[in-house]
């Protein structure tokens, strides 16, 4: 194992060690603060390792170390190990930096928790970092799947962190169901891949049919994990979890695992043009649809959640257009500015004790640092020229030029406008205008919350300029050119922001209220899924339960009952009286004699 892989392994194993320590030493976990310190230390080590890895990594190099896993008859069916290349190094850095920022932020944000749930929170965070890093450095699809399921588990546990709240418990179960439903695709994809190639390598050469089958099944898993239409409904509900969790899992890293999977399995997807076509459309539809829903949310976290769906749609569309690098680039910048936005929202929620945009307003004077950093994140997301989001979004849009009759391109351009519009709405409603009653008592958050905001604001501002370096590392092509796409995109972004000022700036939202309300009915998708859940899944469960209870159990009970009953009857034959036995012997002897005579 070379030193590079050792550093990557360190980034995986140190968080695991921290999580395990907290799990096996309940006193440490229940003490709260020491557990938090341990977990943050582990994240710090992982971040340092990933930064060191980045400085040492040579462009285009791929090195891996694997040890045999699942050895059967002397032959390893799979391997487990560390894969170091441009994609995994960058992703590792993004995950570790965002995780570290979020954990430091949580120190203050979760301050009101009891020590034992404080400790539980950070234990889960360490477990998440381990799971996500396992996924990122996976050298084959099987280990990636293991990490994939582990992050799903931590997501479930963290959404339901406040499990005594019925809505949180429901949301966590919903997220679990929806993603597990989709993960069946991953399992079957692995099976199909193994049957075809006897391995789990994403570089496998397959026939077109097999490649289409495997990638379609993988894409099903991606639709669930990355909250694409029509399986996106769990993500807005996942906002029941603590806000820093939303920032880390449900905006920056875990939901991006789906996109990461496609980037990883790009050689497979390149062999399946049919799946890519579907991805292009699903991504575009999700982007536009979720952006429309983001317009009408009154909860600041829900706006950001739908916005995450929408931006993930951009990435999936870019991957569908055949550019893994565009998707990955947008993943990286999005991770920073969306984590920043969520943490900013967390800072605001912490100050006004409410998620509702109506309870905010006029916070720019009370919370200048939060306002500034949130503003940077919002403008970056909106795609204002020069900020990180502009470069990656522009690159995604450039990949879509001319694809499928320009329709996806048009849809994503419209989404750009809507993105700027709804972010402008949030900025104006939360930070502009007059102070609301709750905002009156708000005050700026403490240093532990502001530091991560400032740290994340730097890449949200400047990460866009790293596109060229990133492309070189991943061995992809990247050019910034002043053509049709960037000009239109910038104009739409600015138009969207100006439009928001016009509409919401001076309390002139009234004419649009009706339009926005009708959009809200679009959440019919959610109702469809809950109806399906209630009627189909629970119905099937009820039938299965009935069959189990009355047929399977009934059969077993019948056997037991018959044995007991017949025993109770037969035992009366044992009268204990010697005459009866003698009679039986005599009758038996006579019958035998009779049989002998008549034979």
């Amino acid at each position, binding site marked *: 194992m070379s030193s590079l892989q050792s550093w990557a392994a360190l980034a995986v194993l140190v968080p695991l060690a921290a999580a395990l320590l907290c799990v096996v030493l309940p006193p440490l976990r229940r003490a709260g603060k020491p557990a938090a310190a341990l977990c943050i230390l582990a994240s710090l080590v992982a971040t340092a390792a990933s930064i060191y890895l980045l400085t040492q990594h040579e462009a285009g190099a791929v090195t891996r170390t694997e040890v045999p896993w699942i050895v059967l008859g002397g032959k390893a069916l799979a391997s487990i190990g560390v894969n170091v290349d441009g994609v995994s190094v960058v992703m590792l850095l993004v995950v570790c930096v965002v995780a570290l920022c979020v954990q430091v932020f949580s120190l203050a944000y979760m301050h009101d928790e009891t020590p034992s749930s404080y400790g539980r929170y950070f234990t889960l965070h360490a477990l998440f970092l381990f799971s996500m890093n396992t996924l990122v450095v996976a050298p084959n699809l099987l280990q990636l799947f293991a990490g994939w399921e582990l992050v799903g588990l931590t997501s479930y546990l963290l959404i339901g962190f406040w499990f005594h709240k019925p809505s949180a418990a429901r949301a966590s179960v919903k997220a679990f169901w929806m993603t597990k439903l989709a993960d069946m695709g991953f399992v079957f994809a692995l099976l199909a891949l193994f049957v075809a190639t006897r391995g789990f390598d994403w570089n496998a050469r397959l026939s077109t049919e097999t490649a289409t089958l495997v990638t379609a099944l993988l894409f099903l898993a991606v639709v669930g994990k990355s909250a694409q239409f029509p399986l996106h409904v769990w993500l807005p509900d996942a906002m029941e979890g603590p806000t820093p969790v939303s920032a880390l899992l449900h905006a920056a890293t875990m939901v991006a695992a789906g996109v990461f999977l496609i980037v990883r399995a790009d050689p497979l997807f390149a062999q399946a043009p049919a799946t890519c076509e579907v991805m292009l459309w699903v991504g575009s539809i999700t982007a536009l649809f979720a952006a429309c829903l983001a317009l009408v949310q009154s909860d600041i976290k829900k706006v950001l959640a739908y916005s995450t769906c929408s931006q993930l749609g951009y990435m999936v569309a870019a991957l569908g257009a055949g550019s893994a690098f565009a998707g990955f680039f947008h993943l990286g910048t999005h991770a920073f500015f969306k984590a920043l936005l969520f943490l900013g929202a967390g800072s605001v929620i912490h100050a006004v004790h409410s998620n509702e945009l109506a309870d905010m307003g006029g916070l720019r004077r009370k919370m200048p640092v939060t306002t500034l950093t949130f503003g940077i994140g919002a403008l970056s997301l909106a795609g204002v020229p020069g900020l990180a989001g502009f470069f990656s979004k522009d690159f995604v849009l450039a990949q879509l030029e001319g694809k499928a009759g320009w329709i996806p391109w048009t849809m994503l351009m419209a989404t750009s406008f809507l993105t700027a519009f709804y972010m402008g709405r949030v900025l104006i409603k939360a930070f502009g205008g007059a102070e609301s009653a709750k905002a009156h008592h708000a005050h700026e958050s403490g240093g532990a919350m502001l530091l991560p905001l400032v740290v994340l604001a730097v890449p949200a501002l400047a990460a866009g300029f790293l596109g060229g370096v990133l492309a070189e590392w991943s061995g992809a092509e990247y050019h910034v050119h002043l053509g049709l796409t960037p000009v239109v995109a910038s104009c739409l972004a600015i138009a969207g922001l100006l439009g928001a000022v016009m509409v919401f700036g001076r309390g002139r939202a009234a004419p649009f209220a009706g339009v926005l309300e009708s959009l809200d009915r679009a959440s019919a998708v959610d109702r469809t899924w809950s109806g399906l859940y209630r009627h189909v899944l629970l119905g099937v469960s009820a039938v299965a339960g009935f069959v189990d209870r009355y047929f399977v159990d009934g059969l077993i009970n019948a056997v037991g009952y018959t044995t007991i009953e017949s025993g109770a009857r037969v035992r009366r034959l044992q009268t204990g*009286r*010697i*005459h009866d036995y*003698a*009679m039986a012997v*005599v009758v038996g002897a006579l019958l035998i004699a009779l049989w002998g005579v008549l034979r």
Partner: protein
Amino acid sequence: MNLTHCLLLASFLFCVGVYGLLTRRQAVAVLLALELMMNAANLAFVAFAHFRGGPGQLFVVFALAITVAEVAIGLALVMLLYRRHDDTALDRASETQG
């Protein structure tokens, strides 16, 4: 007197034994009935040995020895039964019923 007469007598004795076995309540009477059945069989053995030849008489000697052992055990059981119930009626000794 030929073999048939002897076998008829043996059968009659056996049936009397069976009847006694099934109808008597007193343990001693049942033991007597068993003896009667045993001797019916012995009579058949002797009769066959007398008219047809063979080692039948030898078996009778064996059977008599076994009968002695059986009677010893049987009377011991009757003693125990009496100690337990102050009576030797067999229909009261039904402790082993299921």
